[in-house]
């Protein structure tokens, strides 16, 4: 059976070094699904990164980049990865040591998931 967005979020949240996984409505920044140890903060994180993802896609579009597929915010203590999937943005917050290559592939595959 094909994986759903909710199933993807639950599964990714249990990967090593993952703090929080979210599916966020692109239109209004509201949480659709969330899982992970920081889930109590999901609403605020969703609003912050839905906005930043929109801004990142605007940067790409303004510089003739076409449709954005994946973004990675790097910080000194971890990363935030995000990918648009239809009307949603999938956001994964990871600590140092996370397998970023695997996370990136998972998010890119998840773009085609049934919502």
């Amino acid at each position: 059976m094909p994986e759903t967005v909710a199933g993807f979020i639950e599964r990714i949240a249990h990967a090593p070094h993952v703090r929080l996984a979210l599916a966020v409505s692109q239109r209004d920044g509201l949480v659709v699904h969330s899982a992970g140890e920081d889930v109590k903060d999901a609403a605020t994180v969703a609003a912050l990164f839905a906005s930043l993802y929109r801004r990142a896609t605007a940067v790409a579009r303004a510089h003739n980049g076409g449709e954005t597929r994946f973004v990675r915010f790097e910080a000194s203590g971890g990363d935030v990865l995000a990918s648009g999937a239809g009307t949603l943005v999938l956001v994964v917050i990871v600590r140092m040591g996370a397998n970023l290559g695997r996370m990136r592939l998972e998010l890119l595959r998840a773009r085609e998931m049934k919502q």
Partner: protein
Amino acid sequence: MTNDALTAPTRMGEPSFADLLDSRGEDAYLLAKSGAVVIPSRGRAESVLSAEARTATADFGRDAQRAMRHLEIGEWDALTIEAEDRMFALAPLGIGGEHLALVAVPADTGAGYARRLLNRVAARASSLLMVKG
């Protein structure tokens, strides 16, 4: 201050990143927090970005930094954007991240290449900002 910063190739005596770029498919800018171009990719003729481009990057560093601080994962270092036709890398520069270094490369270029180019552009931009004072 490096010799590289002082001898960066220019058109009309203005600094640019032209010598760091491999092909016409690559661009690099130093942007003010307003989104305006401080140092252009190749020369004065390219120093004006569209209103859409300026708006997209205006205060981006401030907003990214605020989000990272909320998550308590340290200072924002860089952003990589993989898009259909191009890949982008951005990083904050200057006191409080008031400037933004931005590079754009073809989409089939590796993300590692974009980050290395960003590092070189950021180093050049930091030196030039020090010269300008």
